[in-house]
């Protein structure tokens, strides 16, 4: 009896995996069928291709994609059959089959909101130091203790300025100025830092403001002035001032 190994968790994991495989296979079948249809837009037989008149199938730009998406479709069908045989279809619609876990769903959704709105809403429109500082504060405060309420608070703190920036300055022509979205981001950052400061003041809580200010500041300065590379939103509230001071007051010190 001592040799008995409890495989219940492994079996449950496989059941969840096969149920997910069932859904994944369906998605893959739809995607590969869609792209196979899109491949039909690329001339295959005897058309004029990019100004080159050639009637041979083997010079077509559609040949390789056709093979790739056909292979993907076939493998997806294999995966679907495997999942169905392993009982994935039966459990596909149950909570066990989907592997639903409320806390994990909140964790993933809030990270998705924070990272998604950071990249799509804030980085193009708001000063990089400000939005990255808010991001670092939100991620450390929200996820260090694993408390779902903190995760939601962090997501809201990121969502508000990002939504504002998207709503008020959607077109690229408005990304540079004015700085109302920069100010709103700064306010939300200060509020979230204040909330984090009110909690238990352990080493991590004390480190949050320092990391949130120093990390993006050093990175953006190293990239812009060290490597002389493009950085997001050069006309942002803080970076525009740094750039001005660098070129007007600091750089002349060694240039002269």
């Amino acid at each position: 009896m001592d040799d008995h190994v409890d495989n219940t968790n492994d079996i449950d994991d496989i059941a969840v995996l096969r149920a997910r495989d069932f859904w994944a296979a369906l998605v893959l079948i739809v995607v590969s069928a869609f792209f196979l249809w899109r491949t039909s837009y690329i001339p295959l037989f005897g058309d004029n291709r990019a100004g080159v008149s050639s009637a041979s199938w083997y010079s077509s730009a559609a040949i390789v994609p056709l093979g790739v998406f056909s292979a993907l479709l076939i493998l997806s069908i294999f995966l679907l059959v495997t999942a169905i045989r392993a009982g994935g279809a039966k459990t596909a619609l149950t909570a066990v089959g989907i592997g639903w876990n409320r806390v994990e769903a909140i964790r993933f959704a809030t990270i998705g909101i924070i990272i998604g709105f950071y990249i799509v809403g804030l980085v193009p429109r708001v000063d990089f130091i400000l939005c990255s500082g808010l991001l670092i504060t939100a991620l450390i405060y929200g996820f260090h203790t694993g408390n779902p309420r903190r995760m939601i608070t962090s997501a809201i703190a990121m969502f508000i300025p990002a939504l504002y920036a998207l709503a008020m300055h959607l077109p690229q022509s408005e990304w540079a100025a004015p700085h109302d979205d920069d100010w709103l981001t700064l306010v939300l950052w200060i509020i979230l830092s204040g909330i984090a400061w009110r909690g238990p003041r352990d080493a991590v809580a004390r480190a949050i403001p320092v990391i949130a200010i120093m990390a993006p500041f050093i990175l953006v300065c190293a990239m812009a002035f060290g490597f002389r590379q493009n950085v997001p939103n050069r006309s942002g509230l803080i970076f525009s001032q740094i750039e001005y001071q660098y070129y007007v007051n600091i750089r002349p010190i060694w240039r002269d």
Partner: protein
Amino acid sequence: MEFVLTQLSGFGGAFLDLSSDPVTYIYLISSVFLGIAFGALPGLTATLAITILTGFFGNKIPLDYSMIALLGAYVGAIYGGSYPTILLNIPGTAASAATAMDGYPLAKRGRGGEALGLTTTASLIGTLIGTVALLIFVWVLLLVSKNIASPEKALLALFGILLSGTLMSEDLVIKGWIAGLIGLAMAMVGLDPLLSEPRYTFGWSYLLSGFQVVPVLMGAFAVPQIIEGLRTMEIGKMLQLEGRILPNLKTIRRHMPTIARSGIIGTSVGALPGVGEDVAGWVSYGVGKSVSPDGKNFGKGSIDGLLCSETANNACIGGALIPLLVLGIPGSPPAAALMGAFTINNIIPGPTIDPDIILRVVAIMVMASFTMAIMGLFTARVFIKILRIPQTVFLPIVMVLTTIGSFSVGGGINDLYLMLGVGFVAYFMNMLRYPIAPLVIGVILGGLFDETFRRSLLISEGDLGVFISRPGATVLLVMIVALVLSQLPLFRHLFARIRKKAV
């Protein structure tokens, strides 16, 4: 003999050139330090270290310094994984997983210092064995690869994608192949390489140039790790580092046969396209268990067991660079990230690569391995302090690093959208146990496969026989067919029956 002397003098020249430049040491020390820190922090990997540094150093500094930064981080990160493995029983990187079997029991017995010292020495010797193999075999293979034409190149790319998909799948092999095909499909986006026909661009001009390598690398390797790592993790009690770290020469000499064997195994495994340091560590550990006189003590705190995995995972680096430099097919996931860095520097690894670059890579590897050993032996306590930083603190910084690195490579904000999209897809793929490395290898090799496959057909005027018209192509085609057939249930049953009969 003349060949060896030419090689050595070429290597000596490159080594002297690099070592006489003071700036080399700035990049070398900082990148090896960063690499060890990345490897030591559970949740960060060697692939991630190279990916992030690619965003920073990829094409912004002279090529030599860029290679020093990336190779230094690679060597450092593979070694750095041994710290948490030995002291916390948590592998810092997948490459160190086998090290935990004996490293942690040794530390529990108060021999943590000795284990770290021996690990450092084994990693140094392992890296040097891999580097020597790289210096020798890369040239032999380069001579052979001069005869490689489009059919062989196309089949090699396909073989690399399929092999990595087969060997990296944790669940069903079919998932590895699907991941590779998704990567290939992503490489089809943009203007086609022969006729400039737009494919799957949906009217978006950004997509005309195809998916850029760096955002794909960042999305595939960094974003899923950030999403997955942002959770409370109770780090177990760290064992005190007891005993001296500097290894005893007598002990090293006694274990030299194990180190040499593991170095050869690690290099050989690394040379297989798409197979990483983790596999090298486990294979060497498995072989060691069956051939070592101390085999029965493996898993209970055996020095031999520790050296088996640690030598092999570092030797794998040199091995993984062989197919990368000679054939343009990465030998491991970090090598795939390295290939991305080469690509954005307009270096196309493969038969046409500048031989001088190979000599410089070898010289950098030697310098990086000695830097790693010196840092490991004399500054181990600094890295042990780094181990205490929770991943919920450093992963947000990694997110900012990833964003600015991806943005500055050239594509601007669109590259960030691409990184985000690839990142979420890769996260779900991870969740469904699809390996991510074949996807990246597919994206990198997709263009090569597309171009060389169609060029072969153009030359042969559509005759598919071109893929069996040359000996090299025939061998590769047979290998691909055998690889696919070996995974089909019908053939697996057949093989099993034949094996049973033979027994």
